[in-house]
């Protein structure tokens, strides 16, 4: 039997990577107002927070990919709720971006 029947660990790893790419788009859009010439401290703070959240999301995905590389792959635990909460926090941060 192959060590990863149905390639489910590999497919899950790639799903994390795709999700990371989506998170990158959100992070860049949230940071964008900080690069306007008239940007002030609030925009910089929002951009810094967005980048921090983005780094956390990417780090979580890397950690999870490592756990998926074991045999048998470990099922997800904390990574899933933490990822969802950071995503919801990015949505709230997006609200700030719109208001600024």
């Amino acid at each position, binding site marked *: 039997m192959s060590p990863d029947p149905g390639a489910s*660990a590999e497919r*899950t790893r790639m799903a994390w990577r795709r999700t990371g790419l989506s998170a990158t788009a959100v992070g860049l*859009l949230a940071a964008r107002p900080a690069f306007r010439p008239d940007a002030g401290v609030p925009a910089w703070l929002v951009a810094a927070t967005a980048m921090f959240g983005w780094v956390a999301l990417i780090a979580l995905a890397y950690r999870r990919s490592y756990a998926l590389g074991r045999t048998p792959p470990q099922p997800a635990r904390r990574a*899933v*709720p933490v990822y969802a909460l950071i995503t919801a926090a990015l949505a709230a941060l*997006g609200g700030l971006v719109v208001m600024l």
Partner: protein
Amino acid sequence: MTDPVNNQPVLGGLRQWFDPEKQPTVGRTPDYRFSLANERTFLAWIRTGLALIAGGLACAQFLPPLPVAYLREVIAIALLLLGGMVALRAVDHWARTERAMRLGRELPGSKFPAILAIVVAAGALLLVVAVVIKAVE
């Protein structure tokens, strides 16, 4: 009688998000392929949420000011709210599915995809109406 899969008290539900298998340890560990499939479904929903959030941010930054006052901001906030809701619903559904699989029960059904589809379609229809009214005037 309370159904441990669907009628969790709110705090128990939140705890279940972080520890779907340990509150208390219930049932048997399912085949890891089922858990990973559940995880990929969660990730697909998170991408949906992230896409809605990105759409909200793009609306706020790239649309010109619309003829109706604050319409651009309202659209952006609505998309961001939807995105946040999708993310929270995704983790809740993931935890409930994980628990149902451990207990060997029916997987939890959900009306959320239908509701999301109707909300998005209604929003699109509303914008079409707004555009047509503007064009006629």
